[in-house]
């Protein structure tokens, strides 16, 4: 988010609140390039107030019930894109099986905003500091994307392609997040904030352990999160945890190229990335 003074009004647009997904997709096609999806609207409204975007049509997807479901099957957990941060934290399916996501959701803005912010909107803003994406990436999540032409599924890691930019086409939207695990995950989400509890991350780390599958994602330090797994971390399952941690920390340190900004320098972010990664790994391995 930039820090220009916002306007007290919004630019003019026409608002739609379809109840059916097909209707939303057909509006997106009809007004292709001129329409924006609005989920929680928290980012969209701010960008319009700052006169950074001027959509002629705003398509509110909060009225579409099928985007608000969370379900668990043997093959994984499905989360509708319009599920809110509070709903993620209150969902027993998420709390019991996807601890990293529940924790990340507790950081998506302050508690009041969390009633409004949605997981689909959170990952689509394409800001380095959004908390949803590192957590979803650590769990190898997939995104189900629909348009009037049909659907495709992409890894969450392929959504954000640059600052504020996603790989979605103008008439596409995310309908569902699919986490390909349904149980037995050990996960965590750690976030360093340099000001109050309610602020954007300086560094955020999400880690996941599922049997012999390990991943560590480092967010907030570059436009796209960094993804490491047991292979790129050269994890030796037979070796001691302390040896592995030392090695992993070095690999992370030499592979991340964090940005410098008003919040923190690149060097500082690099050190914190290593420290948080080690803490997150210790946590998923049970403290040892």
């Amino acid at each position, binding site marked *: *988010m930039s820090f220009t003074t916002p306007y*007290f*009004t919004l630019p*003019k647009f026409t608002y739609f609140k379809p109840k059916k997904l097909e209707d939303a997709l057909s509006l997106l096609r009809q007004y292709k390039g001129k329409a924006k999806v609005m989920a929680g609207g928290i980012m969209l*409204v701010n960008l319009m107030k700052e006169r950074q975007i001027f959509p002629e049509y705003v398509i509110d997807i*909060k009225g579409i019930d099928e985007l608000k479901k969370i379900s668990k099957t043997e093959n994984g957990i499905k989360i509708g894109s319009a599920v809110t941060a509070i709903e993620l934290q209150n969902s027993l399916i998420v709390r019991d099986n996807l601890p990293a996501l529940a924790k990340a959701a507790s950081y998506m803005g302050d508690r009041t905003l969390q*009633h409004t912010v949605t997981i689909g909107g959170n990952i689509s803003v394409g800001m380095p500091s959004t908390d949803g994406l590192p957590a979803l990436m650590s769990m190898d999540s997939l995104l189900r994307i629909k348009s009037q032409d049909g659907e495709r599924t992409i890894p969450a890691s392929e959504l954000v392609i640059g600052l504020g930019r996603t790989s979605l086409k103008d008439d596409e939207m995310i309908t569902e997040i699919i986490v390909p695990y349904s149980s037995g995950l050990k996960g965590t989400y750690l976030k360093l904030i340099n000001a109050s509890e309610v602020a954007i991350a300086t560094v955020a780390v999400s880690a996941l352990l599922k049997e012999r599958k390990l991943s560590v994602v480092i967010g907030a330090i570059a436009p796209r999160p960094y993804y490491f797994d047991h292979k790129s971390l050269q994890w030796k399952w037979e070796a001691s945890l302390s040896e592995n941690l030392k090695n992993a920390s070095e690999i992370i340190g030499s592979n991340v190229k964090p940005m410098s900004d008003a919040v923190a320098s690149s060097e500082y972010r690099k050190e914190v990335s290593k420290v948080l990664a080690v803490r997150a790994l210790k946590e998923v391995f049970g403290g040892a």
Partner: protein
Amino acid sequence: MVVLKMKTISLKVNGITKEITVEDNELLLNVLREKLGITSVKAACWRGECGLCTVLLDGIPVKSCMTLAVETDGKEVITAEGLYSDERAKKLMESFVKHGAMQCGFCTPAFVVTSHYVLTKNPEVDGEELKKELNGVICRCGTYYQIYEAVKDAEKYYKKETKS
């Protein structure tokens, strides 16, 4: 060019259902303050940070500067004015006074509305959890401690067994 259409929404505000004519791009905050004259809802940061424009929308706290008025068609808004007819909330407000939980008072309606929501949901809310629940509202005078005490003290009015 966007052709603006006026829409009539039906909004229940503090117990009274009103038909209000709005444009698609109007913010709930502006409608409440300017069209309905509800001035406990404060306009301050305009970007979803300070929380002083918080209202209850169908019972859930939302920041009205981030909410489109058209989104609220068919819903119910409650502000601090509307809470005065709720005996428990009245006691909560008295508790704010008793504990001196304000200096300038500008954030008080937002804190009252938000803490009413929290206590209604769970009158035995854990202290740390309470602080988290209230972290969407900023008090520039820094009377957080007194606000915390005031809300804790008012828990008893929200417990079912207790007659207020």
